[in-house]
């Protein structure tokens, strides 16, 4: 076990970098952050559209949400893998393919969380904001979303953790994130699959637990008010 760690820890953490592309745990974290950073704004926009009184906005987003919810992420990844290059006419990197799939997939899920959060705020709040003369956007930004996001935190964390774990599906398209690297290490060592995959499992656990704790602290701080 000591030898295993001694020989492979750099490869596990950053892949072939700096001699090759960045990989391993660093890539997983990078992908996770990028996916969350893009999926959350997308989710808020889609969630707003889901609560819109305009059908032209509401219906397409509702359709998207149902399609995504009725499709396994793996399908979305394959679809992005083959479809994106066909549309753009350029080779899409595995990282961008995976990122696109994660953002679309989680954006749709987050939209539902955002919708529930917005609809959970009493109607009097937006009515009152509008009665003061605030525009729709001003009342959303200053009154509704700050309250809604706070209420959404537990659901958001759950979705964030899910997203982080879903980065492991990059394995399927050969993205050298940490699960893929673990597979490579296992193939080279051959004799210690339990040790390799236990390390991998612990790594994911620490990541997800850490994320939960960070948001848990934020939640507590928000609750003090």
């Amino acid at each position, binding site marked *: 076990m000591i030898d295993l760690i001694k020989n492979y820890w750099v490869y596990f953490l950053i892949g072939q970098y700096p001699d090759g592309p960045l990989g391993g745990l660093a890539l997983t974290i990078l992908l996770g952050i990028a996916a969350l950073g893009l999926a959350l704004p997308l989710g808020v926009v889609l969630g707003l559209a889901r609560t819109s009184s305009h059908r032209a906005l509401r219906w397409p987003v509702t359709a998207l949400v149902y399609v995504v919810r009725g499709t396994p992420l793996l399908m979305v990844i394959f679809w992005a893998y083959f479809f994106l290059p066909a549309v753009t006419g350029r080779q899409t990197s595995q990282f961008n393919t995976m990122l696109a799939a994660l953002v679309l997939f989680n954006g749709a899920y987050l939209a539902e969380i955002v919708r529930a959060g917005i609809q959970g705020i009493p109607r009097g709040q937006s009515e009152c904001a*509008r009665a*003061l*003369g605030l525009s729709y956007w001003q009342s959303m930004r200053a*009154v509704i979303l700050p309250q809604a996001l706070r209420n959404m935190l537990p659901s958001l964390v759950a979705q964030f953790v899910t997203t982080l774990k879903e980065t492991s599906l990059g394995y399927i398209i050969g993205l050298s994130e940490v699960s893929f690297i673990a597979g490579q290490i296992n193939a080279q060592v051959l004799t210690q699959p339990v040790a390799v995959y236990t390390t991998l499992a612990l790594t994911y656990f620490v990541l997800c637990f850490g994320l939960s704790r960070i948001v848990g602290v934020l939640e507590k701080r928000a609750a003090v008010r």
Partner: protein
Amino acid sequence: MIEFRNVSKFYGSFRALHDVTETIARGEVVVVCGPSGSGKSTLIRTINRLEPIDSGQILLNGEDVHRPGLDVDRFRSGIGFVFQQFNLFPHLSVLENCTLAPVKVRGLSEAEARERALALLERVGLSGKAQSYPAQLSGGQQQRVAIARALAMEPPLMLFDEPTSALDPEMVSEVLLVIRDLAHKGQTLVCVTHEMGFAREVADRIFFMDEGRILERATPEDFFERPQHPRAQQFLSDLRSPFARSV
């Protein structure tokens, strides 16, 4: 200042407003009363377009309130509205509640808005609560903050939709005193309320509504001493029954 012309409003097949025609003058204090479901709240909510109307016209200073294409936000910013449920923004301090709209809508600087808000909070007797959050205040205090928040926009017209109905009895008078103070200072206001003692003291005119119509419009003295419409007579005698709040 406000003119209703044959205004009707339906909720499905229920007629909430029935061909209402009425005028309210600048500086006038009007109290609207009547039984539950008579259309009182609907009436004042149509004035700032919180409720759409189905036919007729409402003019505010000659401007058609329900005209498509009206700049609703600018229009609403000139009307203070106080809700039954206060609707303070719970994530903002009392001070921030009062400065939000003046800064965002009127374009006041933070300092100007703050100064104005503090003066208003003092006027409603809450200068010590500027940094508190709504959840730390009693119902009566919250409603007074809501009034200060509405006043911070310096609206020519104030509307009150049952401002004391959600309050514990001992907090009713602190809110009514603030509204009375406004009325005495010449603020044009329309107040829907069940507080008949208040109506009698501050109103220039009382509207009595039932089934979507204004059945009686009279000075407080005429309304309480010589009600004309049988429905109004019935309403007042119900209020005088032993367990009703005193008139």
